[in-house]
Structures are given as structure tokens and as C-alpha cells.
């Protein structure tokens, strides 16, 4: 992690080539250094943060006055830092019989904030100040400051589950990790009103940008694991599967057991696990199959690569099977040589600099916050199964010489629906995660998806895909916008890369043209907005028979509905 000085230097660079993000920062203490750290960390993540920093202590005014600079600025992200210190002052000013309402009062304001501001709100929760007025007895006293702060943090979690534009940045967790005496510098605070120490600022900025990047679709999707001395202690080829250090009996096995438990939780959360190990494959698999102390089993691993080739090449293989970006992969390896090799060859892959001592792995990894996410649905946990199936499908494809025969053999079926309560979280999530097959890269929150479903202006389509190997679940979305009586505009078209080359785009186009035809539309207009990642769909519309429109500011393409001949595809519509 860069220190504050380095973050500040970033601002001297030429930022004009970076995509810009409009952000507003509101705080009840001096926020200038936080603003500098946020902008500097933005550069680290590839963004030019175009920041509006409200004047000192204007949170309420900016939010409650609908004509304030906050609303004029039109930020995509509103970062709000209301401090525990100011809350404590409020607590001190309340008559004792009203102190028990402190948390509720603040919550009412945050609720109002969520309803007034349409942007994503990133709200710091409250690091505790243990004032020891009651000592530990404070736990029994509702009016105590400790009680109210803990209640407030708990209620903020509940509120963020309910308010879809509210994202908590867990400042309390940062304090738990760093310690209060490092997060907060009393001498600096008293002389300046700055609440975060110079050492804490980069950490806070990093955690804040984690939230923004996740909302911008930059989340990590895959964890690639080395085996010997990373996932277990010892070398399986030398020591044998039965003598590895894992579990509570042998050596420092506990460290590896707890690491595996953490990895397993990531997998259950939807992170794809892959193995990349220098080993004979059968030897490498033995511990997973035979050692009862292993937490991870073979079925938890979507792609298992164990051979003697170089790891960068093996990670390229894993990337091809999974069809996700290198920048969404994290590689864990205890060996500095392998780490450096992968960093050099595949600079987009995140390679944490694991400490030498395995007992330090977990606390080190916790501090990295590698897997921030902007959404979660229970369908995520099926992802490993889907990728395992994808690997089987690749093997099956090799057995066919003719692509059409292969596609027919898959017995594919797609269910087409609008947006509903079931698929809304998944649609929002896919809109945030799809980078490559995404024509306009518009990101939607669940709230916005619900609004589209309810609006007569839009016609939404959600597509699933199942085949004889398994169900991929929701894999594609099209949102049409009625432009006028005869024209439909393709506001959104994205698809999961797991189903590329299956004829899905033909099926999707057939579906929307049929809709257009039935409802009297004559023309469908599509637009391609290029990003660093969606080059694969630059020719999407011309390849589907759309004609490039002339004299337009962006790449627009039109399709004549009457003249359209349905495309051949081997996907059946599920009734």
C-alpha cells in the first residue's frame, strides 16, 4: 500500500487520460487530507476522481437543502464521513434521559440522506471510542455512549440492507485492525480537527476505493492457489499426503486449516477457486481425496492445474477455461520466485506478497481486502459447479469435428423472462461484473433494475441457459428502450462470457426482433460504447446484420425489423 506522501504525489501526474469519476465528499471534521488521499488512491486504481469537497461541517445543510452544491455537482458517489467525535459531543449535549435516542436520531438522518441522494452513498460507520464512563457496565446501560455507538453500527448494517444506494465503508473494522491509537492522533486532532492519522489515511482511502471499484465492476472473481506450503505445510511429493501439516495435530497445521476455512468461505460466496501447482497431478490431488484433515475438497476447485510447466502459462490456461479477465484473478503462492514471475508475465493478476511465516498469512490477507463486492446473491455459490461443468464441456467439444454437431449435442434451452423479484439481484450483479461482452457498460443497481421493470418506457429481457451438462442460470440481459412508435433502442446488452460461442447472441437477437415485430416496431438501433475491456463486441452489431448509421457522434447501428431473417441457432426456448 502506498503511503500518504506517495498518494499526494500521484496528483501531480497527468490524469487526463484516466476515466473520470464524479465524487462528493461531506464531513463533519476537516476532510482535506482525506480528500487528497481519496484522489491519490483513485489514481492508483486508474480513475481520475473529480471531487467536490463540501465546506467544513456542512453535512446536514448540503443534504437537506435541495439547491446545495451537492445536488448541483451531480456526483456518482457521495462519500459521507460523520465522526464518532462529533457524535460524542452530541451525546454530551443531550439531557441524560434523551441519550438513549442518540443512535436513532443519527439513523433517521442517514435514512433521509439515502432518500434524498440518488447517487451511491458511501458512509463510514463509527469506530468506537471507549469512554469508560460506565466501564464495562456500559453494556448494560442503554444511554451509555458505547451502547449507542454499537447500536448505531448494527442498525447501519440493517439500513444498508434495506436502502440499496447505501454502502457502508467499514471504518470501525479498519480501527479493529489498526488499533485506535494508530487510527487516531489526539495531538493532531486537537490542533487541526483532523480525525484520521497520516498513517490511517491511505488505508481508509483504499477501503473507500474498494467499494467504488466493486460498484464500477472491478471485483475479483477467482482465487488461484499454490499447494505446497501455501495450502498445506510440507511438500506432498516428498512427504506424502498423510504427512502434510494440516489440521490440529501436526506441526503448524492449524495455520493451514484456518486458511482453508477462509478460502472455502470465499468459494461459498462465489469466488471461483483454481489450483496452480508444480506437482504430478495425481500426487497433488491425493491430499484432497484422502487426507481427512483437508477442509477443501476436489469439488471445491473449478480448475485444477498441476504439472511442471511455468506458472504464468498455467494461469493463462486457467484464464482460457474460465474466460474472465486477468485483472479479476488473485494468485497466492508462498514462493517469491513464482510470485515475481507471474507479476512480470501477467501484470494484471493480483499477487499478494505473502509473509514468510504461514501463521501470518491470514491476518495479512485480511488487511488486503481483496474480495470487496457490490452485490451478493445465493446463486453465487453455484458458480464453481458451473465452471467445473464448463471444463467438462471443453473436453466434450474436442470430440466433435463440426461445431454445429457439438452445439446440437448440448441440447441447450433458454428461459426468457422480464425482470422479477427472483432475478433482479442477479441482473444487477451481472451488470456490474460483465466487462467484455457488454455493449454500453451501463452499471445498474438492484434499485435501478426495479425501476426499469416498472417503467413503461423500457422492455427488459433476462435470459438463462441450461444444457445437458448443467444450468448456467441467468447469463444474458437486454434492455430495450422505446425511442418512438417505430424505433427500439438497445439500452443494454450484456452476456456472461461463460456462454460465448454457443449461439446465444443469435437467440437473443431472434427474441428481441420477434418482440419488435409483434409490437409494430420497424427498427432496432444499437450502440457500441468502447471501454478498455469490451473490444470483443466492437463488431457485434455489424456481424449480426445491423447497418452502421452515418454522421453519428457514437457508433450507432440500425436493423430493419421487416427484412430480418431469424438467425440459425441450436437453443430452444423453454416453455
Amino acid at each position: 500500500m502506498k503511503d500518504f506522501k506517495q498518494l499526494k504525489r500521484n496528483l501531480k501526474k497527468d490524469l487526463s487520460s484516466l476515466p473520470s469519476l464524479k465524487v462528493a465528499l461531506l464531513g463533519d471534521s476537516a476532510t482535506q487530507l482525506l480528500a487528497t488521499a481519496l484522489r491519490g488512491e483513485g489514481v492508483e486504481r486508474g480513475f481520475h476522481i473529480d471531487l467536490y469537497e463540501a465546506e467544513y461541517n456542512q453535512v446536514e445543510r448540503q443534504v437537506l437543502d435541495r439547491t446545495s452544491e451537492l445536488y448541483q455537482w451531480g456526483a456518482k458517489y457521495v462519500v459521507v464521513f460523520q465522526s464518532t467525535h462529533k457524535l460524542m459531543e452530541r451525546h454530551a449535549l443531550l439531557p441524560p434521559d434523551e441519550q438513549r435516542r442518540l443512535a436513532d436520531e443519527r439513523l433517521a438522518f442517514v435514512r433521509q440522506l439515502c432518500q434524498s441522494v440518488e447517487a451511491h452513498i458511501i458512509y463510514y460507520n463509527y469506530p468506537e471510542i471507549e469512554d469508560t464512563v460506565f466501564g464495562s457496565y456500559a453494556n448494560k446501560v442503554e444511554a451509555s455512549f458505547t451502547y449507542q455507538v454499537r447500536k448505531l453500527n448494527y442498525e447501519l448494517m440493517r439500513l444498508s440492507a434495506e436502502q440499496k444506494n447505501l454502502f457502508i465503508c467499514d471504518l470501525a473494522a479498519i480501527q479493529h485492525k489498526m488499533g485506535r491509537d494508530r487510527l487516531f492522533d489526539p495531538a493532531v486532532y486537537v490542533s487541526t480537527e483532523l480525525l484520521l492519522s497520516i498513517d490511517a489515511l491511505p488505508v481508509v482511502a483504499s477501503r473507500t476505493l474498494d467499494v467504488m471499484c466493486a460498484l464500477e465492476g472491478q471485483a475479483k472473481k477467482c482465487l488461484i492457489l499454490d499447494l505446497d506450503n501455501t495450502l498445506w505445510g510440507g511438500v506432498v511429493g516428498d512427504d506424502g499426503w498423510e504427512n502434510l501439516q494440516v489440521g490440529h495435530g501436526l506441526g503448524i497445521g492449524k495455520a493451514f486449516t484456518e486458511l482453508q476455512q477462509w478460502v472455502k468461505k470465499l468459494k461459498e460466496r462465489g469466488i471461483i477457486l483454481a489450483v496452480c501447482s508444480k506437482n504430478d497431478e495425481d500426487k497433488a490431488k491425493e491430499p484432497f481425496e484422502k487426507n481427512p484433515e483437508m477442509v477443501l475438497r476436489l469439488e471445491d476447485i473449478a480448475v485444477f492445474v498441476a504439472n511442471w510447466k511455468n506458472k504464468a502459462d498455467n494461469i493463462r490456461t486457467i484464464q482460457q477455461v474460465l474466460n474472465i479477465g486477468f485483472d479479476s484473478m488473485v494468485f497466492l503462492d508462498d514462493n517469491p520466485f513464482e510470485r515475481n514471475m507471474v507479476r512480470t508475465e501477467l501484470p494484471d493478476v493480483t499477487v499478494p506478497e505473502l509473509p514468510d511465516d504461514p501463521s501470518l498469512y491470514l491476518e495479512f490477507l485480511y488487511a488486503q481486502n481483496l474480495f470487496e463486492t457490490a452485490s451478493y446473491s445465493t446463486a453465487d455459490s453455484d458458480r464453481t459447479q458451473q465452471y467445473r461443468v464448463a471444463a467438462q464441456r471443453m473436453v466434450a467439444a474436442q470430440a466433435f469435428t463440426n461445431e454445429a454437431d457439438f452445439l446440437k449435442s448440448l441440447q441447450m434451452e433458454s428461459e426468457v423472462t422480464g425482470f422479477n423479484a427472483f432475478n433482479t439481484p442477479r441482473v444487477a450483479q451481472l451488470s456490474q461484473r460483465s466487462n467484455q461482452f457488454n455493449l454500453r457498460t451501463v452499471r445498474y443497481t438492484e434499485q435501478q433494475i426495479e425501476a426499469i421493470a416498472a417503467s413503461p418506457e423500457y422492455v427488459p429481457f433476462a435470459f438463462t441457459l441450461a444444457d445437458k451438462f448443467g444450468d448456467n442460470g441467468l447469463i444474458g440481459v437486454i434492455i430495450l428502450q422505446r425511442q418512438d412508435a417505430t424505433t427500439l433502442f438497445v439500452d443494454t446488452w450484456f452476456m456472461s462470457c461463460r456462454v460465448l460461442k454457443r449461439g446465444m447472441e443469435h437467440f437473443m437477437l431472434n427474441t428481441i426482433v420477434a418482440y419488435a415485430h409483434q409490437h409494430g416496431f420497424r427498427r432496432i438501433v444499437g450502440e457500441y460504447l468502447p471501454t478498455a475491456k469490451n473490444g470483443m463486441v466492437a463488431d457485434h452489431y455489424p456481424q449480426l446484420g445491423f447497418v452502421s448509421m452515418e454522421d453519428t457522434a457514437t457508433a450507432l447501428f440500425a436493423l430493419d425489423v421487416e427484412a430480418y431473417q431469424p438467425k440459425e441457432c441450436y437453443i430452444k426456448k423453454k416453455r
Partner: protein
Amino acid sequence: MNRQDILDKVQDIFRDILDNDDLVLTNESTADDIEEWDSLTHIQLIKAIEKDFSIRFTSREILSWNNVGEMIDSIVVKVKV
């Protein structure tokens, strides 16, 4: 470490934090003389000096200095102890 050594070290820290390799500090230098030295970089400077000399300033000291010489006075006392 004598006063001059401390002044030299503090000058290095100022150059690094304020990103100005030509900056020259004397005992009489004040924030008015150095463009980049404002109330916010002041905090960065203090933290860097504290780290470098392994000392801690008090909140009174942070607000009290009128020039670099007075800051050096505070450091001299702490470094001796």
C-alpha cells in the same frame, strides 16, 4: 547530534514532503517564506519529523512555533532525553 545536524535533517524532511529539492531552511524560516508549507502540509511535516527522530510533539508545541528555530528547539530537548 548538534543543532546544525538537526536542522540539516529537518531540511531533508521538508524537501521530501514538500517535493522541493531547492528548499533551504534557516532558523528564521516561517510558513510565510515557503509556499508549500500550509496548515495541512504542516501536519505531514510534523509526523515525518516525529518518525525520523522517534519523538512525539505535544498539541501545544504543534501550534506554538513561530519559526523553524523554535521547532528545532523542541526537537533538541526531546532528542537529548
